[in-house]
């Protein structure tokens, strides 16, 4: 099973094979060599002692570990240090690279109910930008990322068609200029 993990700020690809209660962990292509030697498969055994207490046994040497997991995240205390570990979802990883759009288009014809922002305004992700109503349902359009508003194309009370561009943000690369 191949997984991408994020440990601190660095990303690693790890392959884990199960052998009964043991896992063989194998790390790919980097020169970080504290626990696992590059290219060399080490047999590690993680023993659960109780609650969040574990001990990891590598080459016959055991080290106490504290591990709290929450969803795809784990907080680990071992070797005198704290680690934050995230398991990266391969589908999310692929989707990240596809980039996001700079504008919101109307999913169906409707009416602009409320406009909360002006062009040039700085907004942060999750901030409500507009409220629209279509087929008796009110939808709040929120900022999908941090950025600067480029244009708002309809005023309150205006009707719009399907696929009309309702609001656009300044392209990310050009914002710094």
């Amino acid at each position, binding site marked *: 099973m191949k997984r991408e993990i994020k440990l601190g700020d660095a990303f690693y690809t790890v392959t884990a094979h199960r052998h009964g209660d043991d896992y063989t962990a194998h790390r790919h292509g980097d020169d970080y060599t504290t626990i696992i030697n590059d290219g060399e498969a080490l047999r590690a055994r993680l023993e659960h002692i109780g609650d969040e207490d574990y001990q990891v046994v590598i080459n016959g040497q055991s080290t106490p570990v504290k591990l709290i997991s929450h*969803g*795809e995240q784990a907080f680990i205390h071992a070797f005198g240090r704290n680690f934050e570990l995230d398991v990266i*979802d391969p*589908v*999310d990883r692929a989707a990240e690279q596809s980039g996001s759009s700079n504008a919101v288009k109307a*999913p*169906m*014809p409707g009416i602009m109910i409320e406009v909360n922002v002006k062009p040039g305004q700085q907004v942060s992700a*999750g901030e409500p930008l507009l409220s629209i109503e*279509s*087929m*008796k*349902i*009110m*939808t*709040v359009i929120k900022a999908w990322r941090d950025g600067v508003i480029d244009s708002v194309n309809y005023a309150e009370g205006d009707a719009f068609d*399907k696929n009309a561009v309702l609001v656009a943000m300044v392209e990310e690369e050009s914002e710094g200029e």
Partner: protein
Amino acid sequence: MRRIKSSVEVNSADFLANQARNRELLAEFRLRQDDARHKRADRDLERLKKQKKLTPRERIELLLDPGTPFMEISSLRACEDYDGQVPGAGVVGGIGIVNGREVLVHASDSTVKAGAWYPKSVAKSVRLQEIARENHLPVVHLVDSAGAFLPMQSEIFPGHKMGGHLFYQQCKLSAAGISQVAVVLGHCTAGGAYVPTLCDYSIMVRGTGGVFLGGPPLVKAATGEDVSAEELGGADVQCGISGTADYAVDSEQEGIALARELVGTFKRTIKADVDKRDPEEPFYDPKELYGVIPKDTNTQFDMREVIARIVDGSRFHEYKPDYGTTLICGYAFIHGYKVGIIGNNGVLFSDSAQKATNFMELCNRDRVPLVFLQNITGFMIGKEYEHEGITKHGAKMVMTQSNLDVPKFTVIVNGSYGAGNYAMSGRAYEPRFLFMWPQSKISVMGVEQAAKTLTQIKLASLKKQGKTLTDEEAQAIRDDIAHDYEHKSSAYYSTSEGWDDGIIDPADTRNVLGMAISAALNKDWEQSSHGVLRI
């Protein structure tokens, strides 16, 4: 399967405002449910005590395996009718565990009008039997009813799904191999006498239980014969002399214990084979649903946030996520059972209807039960949409959904309007179970459009009669119409009429669905075979 990543902020002003409103609605629901279950006049309770009778809920508690849940059906049936005087329609019913078997419990509520049958009592009993038949569940009848409420006999007696249908269904249940046991805890007179008699096993309590076609007063009037109830059709007569019943017992406790023993002898059903894995609690707390559901029913919300708080591990594989985006389809597990989920994220368009059709065909072929989460204003209207054939695409969805072999379950989580209710497996489409959240609305169209239309019609007819109205009078007519329409669109009206199987606490949705799926799997289904079309 991937975990849904919630973007709900539990400390945001919106969340907190929604939560406050929804908790208020939940408190109202809890209060109404508690009253319907327990609030009774002292004299009714004292009368039972004098007769050494237990209340229906005490009886059910004795019947069920200790510590197991009871999934009550339609606890608020008739809550908006009969001036609120017949709580639960005088019948307590639901699914519980007896000796390790899922059974349908059907109990008269003798704390309400001596268990008399009102039109809605009969309709509720018929629905409970339907649940037994559709899901192949043995039935335990706890019988203690005064019989039909005479002033309303015309609404109880002869129609298709009225009184007679109760006995008809008992016969059909028997032929379908579904065991039934009755405990007779009161007098069963006339038609009522058939309830225990059509069961496989009938237990009668000495002194209080009685079975006769005509009771002592009728016998006296018709033939002049003087006879006591016990001599006419008491436990010892029917169990020892006529053989109409099977076991005479000295107390309700003994009778119910015997019913438990009998259920323990019933053949265990082999459950339908579906994909299962170990259950897992949702990653996101189901109680967060109170903050997810907008305080205003007309505000859009992301159904994925609801799914994340219902399914195992909050894990969901979304099918065709970039196509027909106003409808969410995908696979998840609930209490370890694999399900296909179809949830609304906006109006139904041609593409969303096509996606749903395709997804239902996949689930049907792969024996994956379907869960519909309704929040639907309807299908999109307008020239562009008619030209692309939205009506025929909607018809495909309705056709496929109606003819599914796999069991389906529906939860109305917010709005349920128009043809959307149909396409999303509303009551008329016979989902195995249908539940509603307290704030939900259900009607052919939204209140504003309907009130506008109805007011226009009324004003036009008044104008024809030569009457002119001031603006205030016209507004008053509109307000009356809107008020009535709103009332009849509420979850309480729906549950009172039996358009659902009960209102539920949103946070209980996962457990209710888990129990419903488990019950439904007592009945296997035939698989029709054809390839899945990419529509």
